[in-house]
């Protein structure tokens, strides 16, 4: 025991000596450390316990501040109402239909309260509530599902896009020079992307292995507020078994609304007065 103690202390002393000797030697040669490059890690690592990039949060806060200003300055309840009925009209009708299709929700064509009571303790039957609150006139008479309506909607969207093309044509005639310079610059695009990243709460329940791409066409005002939104494949919202698509589309619409006014370039309104946003959550959901 004593011997090992002695050996140990001798060796320890030796170690301290060596360290003391070698340290100055090392100090002579300062290592050439390259400047630290900070990299934002997007890919979620093998072990995922770290909350998502704080950058996004900051963006949201900024956006929220902006929103506050907007509310106080413009306070446009009427405006919202108007745009709503116009722009969200088509999806609304579709939602309505889907709801009526689902077997769990019992549709009430005569709009009377249907009471389903269970005497058994363990089961409740959900019933559809009377729509006494609905104030939007468009919803009326749309209760019954009619496949022809879809066709009508699709046709309508075609008409709309045709209209769009016409207006575009006017522009091209007026300002031909601007047209050549289409597209946003990288920094412009990044600014817009970063803003929408912050507004978009991804519905985490969506499957990552399905093709869920929601394309939304926006009409913008010069200040970046959105005057019209249109889901390009909105026919898909009607289809049974596309519940995920509908959820994603709704979340994308919320993101656009939440982000208003969009962070658009200060110049070249004609370039970006119409924008298409492609919402694709796969990268995030795959995690």
């Amino acid at each position: 025991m004593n011997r090992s103690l002695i050996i140990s202390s001798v060796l320890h002393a030796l170690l301290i000596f060596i360290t003391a000797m070698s340290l100055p030697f090392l100090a002579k040669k300062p290592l050439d450390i390259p400047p630290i490059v900070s990299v934002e890690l997007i890919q979620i690592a093998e072990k995922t316990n770290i909350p998502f990039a704080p950058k996004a949060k900051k963006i949201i806060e900024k956006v929220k501040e902006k929103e506050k200003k907007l509310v106080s300055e413009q306070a446009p309840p009427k405006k919202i109402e108007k745009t709503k009925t116009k722009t969200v009209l088509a999806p609304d009708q579709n939602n309505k239909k889907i709801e009526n299709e689902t077997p769990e929700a019992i549709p009430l064509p005569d709009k009377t309260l249907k009471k389903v009571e269970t005497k058994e303790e363990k089961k409740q039957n959900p019933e559809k509530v009377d729509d006494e609150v609905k104030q939007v006139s468009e919803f009326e008479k749309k209760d019954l599902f009619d496949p022809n309506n879809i066709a009508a909607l699709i046709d309508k969207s075609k008409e709309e896009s045709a209209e769009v093309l016409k207006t575009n044509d006017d522009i091209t005639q007026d300002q031909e020079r601007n047209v050549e310079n289409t597209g946003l610059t990288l920094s412009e695009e990044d600014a817009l992307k970063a803003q929408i990243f912050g507004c978009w709460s991804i519905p985490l329940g969506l499957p990552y292995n399905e093709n869920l791409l929601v394309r939304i066409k926006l009409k913008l005002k010069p200040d970046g507020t959105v005057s019209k939104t249109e889901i390009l494949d909105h026919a898909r919202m009607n289809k049974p078994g596309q519940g995920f698509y509908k959820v994603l589309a709704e979340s994308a619409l919320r993101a656009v609304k939440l982000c208003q006014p969009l962070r658009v370039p200060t110049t070249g309104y004609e370039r970006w007065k119409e924008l298409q946003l492609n919402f694709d959550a796969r990268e995030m959901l795959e995690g």
Partner: protein
Amino acid sequence: MTKKILILLFILIPIKANALIEVDITRGNLNPLPLAVSPLSIDEESRKGFEKILKKENIGSEISNIVENNLRTSGLFNPLDKKAFLQAPDIANLKPRFEDWNLIKAQALITGKVNYVDDKLRVEFRLWDVLAAKEMMALAFTTVPNNWRRVGHIISDKVYERLTGEKGYFDTRIIYVSEEGPKTQRIKKLAIMDQDGANNKFLTLGNELVLTPRFNPASQMVTYLSYFKNMPRVYLLDIETGTQEVVGDFPGMTFAPRFSPDGKKIIMSFAKDGKSDIYTMDLENRIVEKITNHPSIDTSPSYSPDGKYITFNSDRSGYQQIYVMKNDGSDVKRISFGNGLYGTPVWSPRGDLIAFTKLHKGKFYIGVMRTDGSGERLLTENYYQEAPSWSPNGRVLIFYRETKTNSKGEGFSAKLWSIDLTGYNEREIKTPTDASDPSWSSLLSN
């Protein structure tokens, strides 16, 4: 003719010249969706009626508290502070002033009201999209007053489904093993509770050791391992009636039971002469089938949701690894190839993933991989944790975690924890005693 050409030009030119600017949005935030759960409104007469029966001062608030708690614990929603609400519950339910809710940053709003009708509890609720200023869904339920907690859970499920696109998991129960006493002489009982920890109830007295209870996905049956008369055997328990029976007649230890997805078979391990193989027993005709035949330990079997495949744990390679085979035992393939030992594979009810326990360098991990073994993701690391069980929608895993004892062998505890597939939302599920071996039921209502 010229007209046609003109039209053609008319169409072609703008497309070529002014393509619509497209911006790809491939990222978003994983922050929980801010939403407001307005307390369910209740008229004075109904309030008094329920106060008498349920001893709760305001059943409307109680139910909305359940909804709020469920949505918060899911990690996908952020219920906002009620103090900030500007609109009274009864008025909000009739016609929300969306600007008010927008102002407090709510993106969705839940309103509703409670009535006392013919000794029954009648609850209606509505879900509103605040930003789009429209109603998303409206439902009503009528039930006996004692079911008020379940009403809260069902509302949570409906909201969850409408906003995430997949079914919820709130109207469910969890069966687990309650643990008490010193580590060397644990007393274990079967216990059952609601998914949120309420209504805890013990199902056995603790006279014999019980382990690994598992729910039948199709009924209120449970299968588990009991050391009744010191003979470790797989048992079947009917929660409604309390009747118990031993499963099959095996000359040795049966363990690691689990139901088939249709609830008609039990799959389990049978150990004899130092080797454990996997067997199934049909609960209707009692026919026993041997599925694996290997001198190694084959255990922890779990069916795929379509019943066509079985994943299990085997040490045929020398160490514990995860395998997948067809339901007749053919086509055995090893799927785990990472460093470490792999155990307790459980097939997700969605079918796309297998959850597992991994032991590597003295740490235990709960993780998931695809059914071919690719895409391994470790969700949580700890000193000891195992036995993941899926929520019925395949989004959350519940498991148990044991603590390290100190140098005197003190400080041992076992607790239930849950984590969702993103690995962000990890939380303890409080139980009256220590707890282990949790198993999640299917949705009680559909």
